[in-house]
């Protein structure tokens, strides 16, 4: 246990601080004042102080374990990303693939939690999440291939280094196409409108989260907040040169731009039905991603 441990721990966990931005921007779009910046954290604090209720027929271990599974995956990915971006850690071979793998775990945790709680609405939400997962993974992976092809590496630090030297992936045709595909599939990964089918409040209460309460629900909320900053950072690293610019202000601006794009998409669309979402991912976004990959192979 030394200073570095605490520093790393702090930086892995601190990503949720960007979440209030979402609520504030949303409020502005909707002509509201919006909550104070600490509101999300106050909500979390309140949830952690509450009783945990476990439904009678649930499989208790899975029910309890699910939120932590998601959180651990997110913390690890947050750790890798910040290390590479802020402290120029060389990373390890294939860390990009590990990240892509880690990002499916929060969705899996949601699915497990929903099925474990043995509530018809939760099961419905979980099955929707499965369908959605099947939908967005394909365009997401294809689009991530574009920076890999362009930079010729599956190591994050090298991808960023290449972009610093040769310009961001985003500035090429294939890169911008892939960027759009990644933005939309990440939107679904984070479970935001128009792809919030799994938690559609007015349709199936909260889907997989219906039976959750207290600290366990708090962890799920925390996962959501973490995702809201870690995934934009991932997109930034893959497509826009990460935190590679000499001017840290520009880096932060880029990061916030991506965060705000997610918020804007979320506030200017109604929710899609799950079959429409699937069709959108498979027949539209996957095509765009494939075109991007082909263009990238052609060197554009």
């Amino acid at each position, binding site marked *: 246990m030394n200073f570095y441990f605490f520093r790393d721990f702090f930086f892995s966990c601190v990503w949720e601080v960007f979440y209030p931005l979402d609520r504030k921007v949303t409020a502005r779009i909707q002509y509201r004042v919006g909550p104070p910046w600490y509101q999300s954290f106050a909500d979390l604090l309140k949830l952690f102080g509450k009783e945990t209720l476990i439904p009678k027929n649930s499989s208790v271990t899975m029910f309890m374990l699910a939120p932590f599974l998601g959180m651990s995956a997110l913390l690890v990915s947050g750790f890798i990303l910040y290390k590479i971006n802020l402290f120029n850690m060389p990373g390890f071979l294939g860390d990009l693939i590990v990240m892509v793998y880690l990002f499916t775990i929060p969705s899996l945790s949601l699915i497990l939690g929903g099925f474990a709680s043995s509530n018809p609405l939760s099961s419905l939400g979980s099955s929707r999440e499965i369908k959605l997962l099947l939908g967005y993974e394909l365009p997401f992976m294809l689009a991530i291939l574009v920076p890999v092809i362009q930079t010729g590496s599956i190591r994050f630090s090298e991808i960023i280094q290449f972009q610093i030297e040769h310009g961001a992936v985003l500035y090429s045709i294939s890169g911008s196409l892939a960027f759009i595909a990644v933005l939309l599939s990440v939107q679904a990964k984070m479970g935001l*409108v128009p792809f919030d089918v799994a938690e559609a409040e*007015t349709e199936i209460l909260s889907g997989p989260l219906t039976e959750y309460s207290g600290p366990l629900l708090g962890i799920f909320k925390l996962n959501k907040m973490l995702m809201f900053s870690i995934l934009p950072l991932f997109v930034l690293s893959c497509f826009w040169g990460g935190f590679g610019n000499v001017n840290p202000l520009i880096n932060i601006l880029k990061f916030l731009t991506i965060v705000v794009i997610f918020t804007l998409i979320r506030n200017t*669309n*109604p*929710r899609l039905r799950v079959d429409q979402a699937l069709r959108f991912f498979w027949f539209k976004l996957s095509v765009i991603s494939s075109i991007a990959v082909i263009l990238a192979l052609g060197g554009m």
Partner: protein
Amino acid sequence: MSKNTIIPIGPYHPLQEEPEFFKLQVEGERVVGVEINIGYNHRGIEQLCEQKSYDQVTYVVERICGICSTSHPFAYVNAVEDLAKVVVPERALYIRTIIGELERIHSHLLWLGLAGHFLGYNTVFMWSWKYREIVLNIFEQISGNRNHYAMMKPGGVRRDIDKEDIPTILKGMDELETKITMLKKAIMDDPVLHARLKGVGVLTKEEAINYSALGPVARASGVKIDVRKDEPYAAYDKIDWDIIVTENGDLFDKVVVRILEKLESIKIIRQCLKKIPSGEIDAKIKEIPPGEGIGRHEAPRGEVFHYIRSDGTNSPVRHKVRAPSFMNVATNNTTVIGTNVADAVIVLAAVDPCYCCTERLYVYQDHKKVMDANELIKLSQERTEELRKKLVV
């Protein structure tokens, strides 16, 4: 045969704030059956009205609905005037029309916002409720109240619309027109909304007639009914306006009808303010003769029907209220079948239901009333007590 899952919507569900219960039988995500249970509210309004004097009843029926709070008084005063054969002063009729149409605008805006919320489109929710404020402010200026305006009175209206208020109302209408046109464009051009709403929850013209659907629900299905035109009252026959009818009967058309009706209401209000004559606003009814009276009003949700029977005393012997949701909620029986669960909720909400206005409860056996309001209240209190004891143990 495979066993169907039951998805309960209600009695407490974030979809609607009122207690209602739709048992959806679901195969996968497709709805194959629906059971509608309403009747969670008992408020004893009709019974209460029979104990009040004619002037007080206006006050009571205003409380039937919080959203369309002038619809019931409007229909009620029509019924009383029908019963007493009163000629209402012209100016009062125009004021009633203005109030009724202003209410239609704010009620439809409220529904539009809620529909947005049901679709997860919270921006529409917030925006349309913000524009609703314009109407509410006008109401506050005219009547002093934002929601229960208390303008109706048998024989006339309670308050006059001041000359100084008219420019503000007109200004409000101009503002609303631009805002509603903007919303209309935003909604009609949104491809995602098209994908969600077009061809979903279709109520065919035939079914609309069979189920006796009313108001915007019927008009979206191509049934051209509107009490304001069919049996004109107030100043509706002196004004130039159209019934909005669309043909498809799907959710998208229900949205379109309601948006276009708002613009039509603005048109009516403008004409009323131009044509409004000066003079008395109250016919000052002295006494109510024995007899029967029927009053109808086209509320934002459809036709409101009031029936009054008098025996010449100070209060009605029988007062019957029928709210439009009573007819419209039943149409869910056909519209919801075959839709996706995701669509089912918005289909259920598309009739703009108002359960508290709809529900009545008496217990009859062999044409004799076996339970009245007080007994029902006692029953409910006992049940609550029982539940409380159970919860403590």
